[in-house]
Each structure stands twice: as structure tokens, then as C-alpha cells.
């Protein structure tokens, strides 16, 4: 273990907690010890109590939520129920999942200075600069927080939590809200804080690939108790426990599980997997996986012709989002727009809806120039399901939201059509509830229902799997598959390349307002230079296949397994095709 500079333990003994008004206790006797300097991942399904557990570390539970608490939590020698949140916050920094809402000041400097000034530290300027330097954020001091990218916002939230120099850092689901590259960057910083500064780091995390790579140990929270705390390799081998909590083991572990009969322990990182599978390598093979290539028939349904688009910011000048971009999308294609945050994916979609019109060039949808018609008219063909489902809820119940479009246009049999869509997306039990009060996964489903009710021929989905746990992600994936049968063309903007690998017929990679790669998934995933340029990482299974020299690399766990079982172990180890890219 690394050098530890503090002696702040976390001790949870028989913790029980019940939210006021709730029928059941969310925690029912949890026990947990976290040593100084550990890097711990806390996993568990939705509603298992993991966030409540972590909120007891800095006293938000029980001081902020006046529920019924029993048992004892001791953090850095303080009994949590006896100490104030302000006192505990000097030992525990907390980054919330909805990090956007925790930034309370206009500029980065003021945000990071918020805590030191509240505590009356005269050296607050030095603290701010030290913290920003530590996270490589120097230079952003005077920027406005709302003009930052998602990744930068998250790092600023982290800097704000670090400004009091706490020994313990709790980060709630960093990977859920960020694109993979930004999530990795956050984890790199956390690892640095842990290794060189000895901070205890606790993350709540669903994505086991990150856990395997960065964490020391894993805590499983199940139905309000801590089932176990194990070293990471052992923990990720408890496949049944993980699946019971909707946590998916890393792809490499899943492959090993299918291929190897009794070889325990299974590998959990790419490097382990590489060692293990090198002997299985085969350099040729036919593609047996993934959907077949889309056949480009007829005229394009969406057509971008030399489109440029920009917007103005207050302190950063004019930002060019799209730069003379041309793209044709044909009927029956399943297109994934990939690219890091800010690459222009959402702008591209807004242009198709007609809500935005290009500064230069033309956008044609179904033969109509979008500048000639109102967005209301385009909405008969195109539906845009937003990244943030809350922006789609304009009525006070899911059912009213689904019916809104049909009612407004005086469609016949509105009730019957709404019933169909609600049944199609399993929303019967939720239809009378307010969309804003549902869980993120349910919200996503409801927003898809709102979109499908308009019976569109073109459907645009913006980050449909963002901020979902893996179970909900798979569910949305299935829904998109089924929805695809009803509509002609589906375009998804996402950085979830696992979804892209298993679903798309065509991947378009955007970078700096232009297209840098365009083709079927296997071709695009083979174009490592373009992916690197766009800050994208192919799914672990593709990276594993590429390293093993499989060409074309399989895109899914199933396809990989098939390839391994058909190819007999070769006598000479194949050469890895590329160096591991970190």
C-alpha cells in the first residue's frame, strides 16, 4: 500500500437508517471499516442503500435527513451523530452524482474558494491555486462554470471538495455522468491523490472495468447491509453476487467465464486477459457477429451539405461547433454518432429537428430544407429524445406527456394509441406518476415513450444510456432494438461504444466539428488513429481482440467466445498488433 499521511479511519457499526415517511429502512445493520489510504469501490443495485451509507460519512445522514438512525459511525475519531456536518466536512470531501447542481458560484475561482472562505482560512487564495494545480486546472480560474465541459465541471466539483484538504474523498458515480475519456481522467486524478497524497478514496461505481483498473477493494451493499468487502480480484470473481445486484463483471471476465471451464480466478483487467488468451489467438476469421451492413438504397433521408454552425460564449469567444460538415443518412440505417463531449453531436441533432438552422450550408430532411419549414412541421417525421429526460416532461403525468402530441394534433383514437405505446414500454404502473419523480432509468423509458408516440420515421436519441446503471442500459438497448422495428431510421449520439458495437450498422466519428471516420463498426473500431484523435476507446472486448491480432476484431462478448471456441489454440503465440494504449 501507498504512503499514508493521515490516520482517518471510517468505522460503521450496525448502521440502521430509515428516511422520514419511508416504509422500510434503507440501511438495516451495515458494518464496514475503511482503513486510511484505501481506494474502495462501493457497488450495489439501485436502492440498495450505498449512497445513504456514503452520506453518513460526512454527516448529511443523520443531520440533514432527520430520519431514524441507529448504530454508530465514526469518521476520523468523530462520532458522526455528535459532530456537525461542518466539522466532518473538514475530514471528508464529497462529490455528488449530480455534480452540475453542486456548483454554487459563477466562476471557477469562487467555487473552489467557497469552502476555505466559509471556514475563514486566510490563505484561501493559495489553497485555490494549489488545488487547481493539483488537478491540472490552472488557467480556468476566471471561467464561468456553466461554460465548462462536463468533464471540467466534474473536476471543478472535485477541486471544490478538495479545497479543505480532507483526508477522505467520496465520489458518487463518476463514470455515470461522464464520457469514458473524462471518466478515466477523473479516475487518474483520484489514483494520483490516493497514491502520492495518501488520501482515502471511496467511489460509488457501476462500471467494473474502472473498478478493476483503479480500486484496491470492493464493498458490496445489498438490501441495506454490507455483504462483503474483498480485494478487487476476488471481488470481481463473485459473479453470482455481482449479477444479483445488476452489476456486470468486466467483459474480459465474462469471456473467460465462458471459455475457461474451471480456471479460477478469472482475469479482471485487460492485461490479465491478454496473458491468458494469447495462446488462443487466431489472425484470420470471418465476421460472425454484429448486425450486417446497412444497404444504402434510395435517396438519403437526412442530408447535411457543407454545414457550419457556431455559438457565442461570454469569455471564450465564438465557438465553431460544426465546420463545413457533409453527411448523408439513408433509410433503414442505424447510425451511431460518436465523439467526446462537445464534438458537435447534439448540435447535429438539433439541426435535424429544425430548432437550430445552420449558419452556412443546408440541412435537408426527407427532401425538405429545414430553413423553409417550422420545427413543428418537421416534428411529424422526426422525433428528438433529449439527453436529459426531464426536459421532455411538460405535463404532470407520464400518460399526459405521451398523449400531448396526439391530443394537440387531434389524432383519432388517441387513448388507444397511448395505451399501445405505454404497454410497449412497460409503463402501465408508472403512467399516472409525474415523470420528474421517477428514477433515471424509468425517466429514460418514459422519454422514449413520448418520442415513439409521435409515430416518427426518423428517431434521434441523444445519449440514451447516459447515467444509467448497466441493467437499465441493457433495457434501453432492448427498447431501441424493438423501437427500430417501427421506425425507418435511427440515429443515436453516444459515447457508449458497447452499445455502438452491438447495435449500429454505421458509426460516424465526430471530432472538432468534422467527420474523421465513417463506416460499419468493425472498420471504425479498426481505425485506431481516428478513435484516439476523437478521445474514444473501443469496448474492452474489441481492444482485447485487436491486441490478440484478431482481424476483424469481434465486437461482442458472444462473438469473441465463438471465435475462441472455433479456433484451436495455436502453437506459436501471436504477436499483439498494437501496444496497449493508456
Amino acid at each position: 500500500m501507498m504512503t499514508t499521511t493521515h490516520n482517518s479511519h471510517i468505522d460503521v457499526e450496525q448502521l440502521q437508517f430509515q428516511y422520514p415517511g419511508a416504509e422500510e429502512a434503507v440501511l438495516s445493520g451495515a458494518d464496514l471499516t475503511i482503513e486510511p489510504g484505501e481506494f474502495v469501490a462501493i457497488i450495489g443495485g439501485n436502492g440498495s442503500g450505498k449512497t445513504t451509507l456514503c452520506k453518513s460519512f460526512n454527516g448529511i445522514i443523520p443531520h440533514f435527513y432527520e430520519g431514524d438512525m441507529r448504530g454508530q459511525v465514526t469518521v476520523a475519531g468523530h462520532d458522526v451523530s455528535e459532530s456537525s456536518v461542518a466539522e466532518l466536512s473538514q475530514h471528508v470531501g464529497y462529490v455528488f452524482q449530480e455534480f452540475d447542481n453542486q456548483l454554487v458560484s459563477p466562476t471557477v475561482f469562487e467555487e473552489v474558494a467557497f469552502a476555505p472562505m466559509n471556514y475563514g482560512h486566510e490563505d484561501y487564495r493559495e489553497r485555490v491555486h494549489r488545488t487547481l494545480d493539483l488537478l491540472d486546472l490552472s488557467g480556468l480560474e476566471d471561467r464561468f462554470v456553466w461554460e465548462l465541459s462536463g468533464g471540467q465541471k466534474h473536476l471543478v466539483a472535485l477541486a471544490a471538495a478538495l479545497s479543505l484538504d480532507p483526508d477522505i474523498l467520496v465520489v458518487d458515480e463518476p463514470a455515470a455522468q461522464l464520457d469514458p475519456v473524462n471518466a478515466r481522467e477523473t479516475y487518474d486524478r483520484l489514483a494520483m491523490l490516493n497514491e502520492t497524497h495518501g488520501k482515502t478514496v471511496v467511489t460509488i461505481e457501476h462500471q467494473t472495468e474502472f473498478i478493476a483498473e483503479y480500486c484496491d477493494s470492493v464493498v458490496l451493499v445489498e438490501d441495506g447491509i454490507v455483504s462483503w468487502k474483498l480485494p478487487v480480484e476476488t471481488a470481481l470473481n463473485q459473479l453470482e453476487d455481482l449479477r444479483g445486484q445488476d452489476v456486470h463483471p468486466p467483459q474480459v471476465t465474462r469471456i473467460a467465464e465462458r471459455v475457461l471451464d474451471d480456471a479460477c480466478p478469472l482475469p479482471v483487467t485487460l492485461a490479465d486477459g491478454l496473458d491468458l488468451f494469447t495462446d488462443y489467438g487466431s489472425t484470420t476469421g470471418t465476421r460472425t457477429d454484429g448486425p450486417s451492413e446497412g444497404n444504402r438504397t434510395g435517396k438519403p433521408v437526412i442530408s447535411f451539405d457543407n454545414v457550419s454552425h457556431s455559438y457565442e460564449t461570454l469569455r471564450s469567444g465564438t465557438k465553431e461547433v460544426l465546420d463545413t460538415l457533409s453527411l448523408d443518412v439513408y433509410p433503414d440505417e442505424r447510425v451511431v454518432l460518436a465523439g467526446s463531449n462537445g464534438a458537435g453531436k447534439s448540435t447535429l441533432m438539433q439541426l435535424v429537428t429544425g430548432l437550430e438552422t445552420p449558419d452556412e450550408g443546408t440541412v435537408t430532411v426527407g427532401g425538405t430544407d429545414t430553413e423553409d419549414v417550422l420545427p413543428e412541421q418537421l416534428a411529424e417525421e422526426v422525433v428528438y429524445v433529449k439527453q436529459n429526460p426531464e426536459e421532455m416532461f411538460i405535463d404532470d403525468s407520464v400518460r399526459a406527456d405521451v398523449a400531448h402530441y396526439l391530443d394537440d394534433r387531434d389524432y383519432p383514437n388517441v387513448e388507444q394509441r397511448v395505451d399501445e405505446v405505454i404497454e410497449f414500454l412497460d409503463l402501465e404502473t408508472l403512467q399516472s406518476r409525474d415523470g420528474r419523480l421517477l428514477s433515471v432509468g424509468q425517466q429514460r423509458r418514459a422519454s422514449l415513450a413520448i418520442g415513439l408516440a409521435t409515430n416518427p420515421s426518423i428517431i434521434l436519441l441523444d445519449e440514451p444510456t447516459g447515467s444509467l446503471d448497466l441493467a437499465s442500459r441493457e433495457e434501453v438497448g432492448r427498447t431501441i432494438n424493438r423501437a427500430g422495428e417501427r421506425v425507418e431510421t435511427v440515429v443515436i449520439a453516444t459515447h457508449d461504444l458497447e452499445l455502438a458495437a452491438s447495435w449500429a450498422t454505421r458509426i460516424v466519428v465526430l471530432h472538432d466539428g468534422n467527420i474523421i471516420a465513417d463506416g460499419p463498426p468493425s472498420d471504425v473500431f479498426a481505425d485506431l488513429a481516428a478513435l484516439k484523435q476523437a478521445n474514444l476507446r473501443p469496448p474492452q472486448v474489441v481492444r482485447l481482440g485487436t491486441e490478440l491480432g484478431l482481424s476483424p476484431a469481434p465486437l461482442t462478448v458472444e462473438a469473441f467466445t465463438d471465435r475462441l471456441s472455433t479456433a484451436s489454440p495455436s502453437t506459436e503465440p501471436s504477436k499483439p498488433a498494437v501496444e496497449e494504449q493508456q
Partner: protein
Amino acid sequence: MTTLDALRDATSVETIKADLLRTAYENEGSFLHRLDPRVLLLWYAVFLFVPWLFYDTTILLGLLAFVSVLAVLSRVSLFLVGLMAFTVATTLGSYAVVTVFTGDPVAAIRALIPYTLKLTIISVSSLAVFSSMGPKTLSQGLRSLGIPRQFTFLITYGYRMLPVLFQEYHDLVNSFRLRSTAPDSPGRFRWRHYAYLLKLSVRAFYPMIFNVAKRSRVTVEAMEARGFSHSLANEASTELRLADMQIRPMDVGFFAGSLFVVAALALFL
């Protein structure tokens, strides 16, 4: 058509948003920004009072010219100036319409001009003062005058949320548009179209309020976890917050100069 296009561009949501944000934040270059917030607030209090001392239209016009110069130096948002001009003109216009039935409209307007001028002077000086103070200086100034931190923080936070609210509101209006039917024929001057947009704009307020309410819970937790309540009773924290304020000769000069201008106007006009 180009004039209409230009007008539409100038009144587009994006332009107004950028203009208002610039008013709220980009005030570093303005003259009044360099003054101490306490002096500015005191100056403002005086100028709320001064117009009521005079009845002479010429003096009032002189005062208006003076505060207008300050407003120009503070780079007041054109949108806000336009909005103010519009209100003043329509108010006077409405008096005229009403007084057509009761007597002589010209005499009525003439009688009301001094009163309207006084209100305009106050409005213009408000614009000048508050456009040139950023959220930070404004809350510093109020805090030093003894206003509780809960309130002064609200100002900074309100400013921080402003662009987020704009964005959210704009998005919600768009959500409404994509699921509604625009009127078949826009009518003369597209009035039906604008009436329809107006209706959607009003309806979009309700979901926005719900979304904001839901969000504020995380904000409050995050503030607590960074010692907000702690700062309320903490003397050292208050001192830090007010440390970089100081009254310099320039502040005194500005204040005295303003009083001198008022006195000169009163004596010589």
C-alpha cells in the same frame, strides 16, 4: 425584409440571453465598476431622492443627461434600454389615449412629463449602478451594510443560476414546440404565430419551476458539506469576504463630483 430579419435576430432568444449575461457579468471595463460598492449604493440612494427635489423640466433633463452618460460608461444592455424606452413611450401613449375622452390629451401629457422624467432618471441610474456591479461586488456591498449573508448569497447564487435557467427555459419551450401544432396560417404580420409562441412561453414556466425545485436539494446538501452554515456565525469568514473593499480618493471624488453636478444644474439652469 432585411430590417425585419435584423429585428428578429436582435430579439432572438440567443441574442437576448447573451446580452443579459453580458450585463450581469462583463462589467470589468466600465467606469462605475472601479468604485467601492458601498459608495455606489450610497450614491444610488442619493439619486433615488434627488429628482424629487426639482420640478423644472430643464433641470430634470440635465439630470437625465448626466445619469445617461454614466449609463453609457457602464455599457448598459441595449435590450434593457430598449425595454425601458418602450415602457416610457407606451405609458405616455396610454395617458394620451385615456385623456382623449376626459379632456385635452396634450395638456395631460405635458403635465405628466416631469413625473415621467423623474421615474426615468431613477431607472437609468438603477441600470447604470446595477449593470456595473457584478454579483460579487453587489453582495459584498450589501453584506458590509449589514444585510445577512443568507440574502447576499442568494444574489450571487441567483446570478450563477441565471444562465442555467435561461437554457432550461429555452429547452422547455423547444420541447413544447416539437410536440405542438403551429397555426395553419400565420395571419397578418404572423400574429397567430407569435400568439402561439407566447402561449407556449407561458406554459413552459411551470415545468421549469418544478425542475428547479427538484434540483435545489442537491445544491443545499453540497453547500452544507462545504461549510455554508458554519460561515454564518464565523467572524473570520465575514472579514475575509469583505477584506478587499476600500474607499479610495476616486470614490470620494466621484461622490463629491456628482453632488457638484446636481448643484450646478440647480443653480445655472
